[in-house]
């Protein structure tokens, strides 16, 4: 397989995989992300969020991920109804779940990151710059989040069969709404 094809598959695997297959693969990766994130203290507390925590239980780790996916799928499904003539719910569910896959890298990277103590950060926020691994994780989170957003965009594009400015505007609004919903639900429930 040529490098161009590999790159194309990395940013849009949904031309090859969608529906139940994408959901199955996505769930396996999400479960791995939840388990890894629990041990590495990386919480995915928002659709496009991640934070290092001092303590994280299995329950909270999976609750965060479940809220993220439900918020994302719900908002993207409503968006699909508004801008698309026809689509299958299973495609939105499967592709959006798989679009969360890049966060597994951050969960793994969390193992190698020394998180500064929260009390010390509160006293002196600049202390975070003394931890090289923390800076690396923060820098790594930017391309990973961009990658995940590109995957979510392509998930909506492929699942709903729409393109152009209408898709871009609808996606940005939907992503922001799903992020806000996930944050509110996490704040209220957990």
């Amino acid at each position: 397989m040529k490098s161009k094809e590999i790159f194309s598959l990395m940013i849009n695997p949904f031309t090859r995989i969608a529906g139940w297959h994408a959901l199955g693969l996505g769930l396996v990766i999400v479960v791995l992300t939840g388990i890894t994130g629990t041990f590495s203290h990386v919480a995915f507390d928002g659709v496009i969020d991640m934070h290092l925590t001092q303590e994280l239980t299995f329950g909270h780790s999976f609750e965060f991920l479940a809220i993220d996916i439900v918020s994302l799928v719900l908002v993207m499904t409503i968006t699909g109804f508004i801008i698309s003539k026809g689509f299958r719910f299973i495609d939105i569910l499967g592709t959006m779940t798989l679009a969360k896959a890049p966060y597994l890298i951050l969960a793994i990277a969390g193992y190698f990151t020394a998180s500064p103590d929260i009390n010390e950060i509160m006293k002196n926020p600049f202390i975070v710059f003394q931890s090289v691994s923390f800076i690396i994780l923060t820098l790594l989170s930017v391309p990973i989040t961009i990658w995940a957003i590109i995957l979510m965009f392509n998930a909506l594009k492929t699942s709903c069969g729409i393109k152009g400015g209408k898709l871009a505007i609808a996606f940005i609004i939907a992503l922001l709404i799903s992020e806000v919903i996930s944050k509110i639900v996490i704040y209220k429930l957990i």
Partner: protein
Amino acid sequence: MLPTYCPSCQTQLKVKCLKCESCQTEVSGLYDLPTLALLSSEDQQFVLRFVINSGSLKEMASELKLSYPTVRNMLNEIINKIKTHEK
């Protein structure tokens, strides 16, 4: 591949003459090209495979090694092209 557009001005071409290879009879006139002939060779192949697969998008997806929504989007694009040609 059958040429469908004028290489000079890009206007849609018409059929002027048809010939019988058996008796050499020629039928002249000005006939419209069939809508399917106006599609690209890739689109024509897609339509052909779609018919052979009994119109099953799932079987098409399996044959082309593509996802179901991708194949459905390809079909939708062809439908839009056909609608444009018919206008």
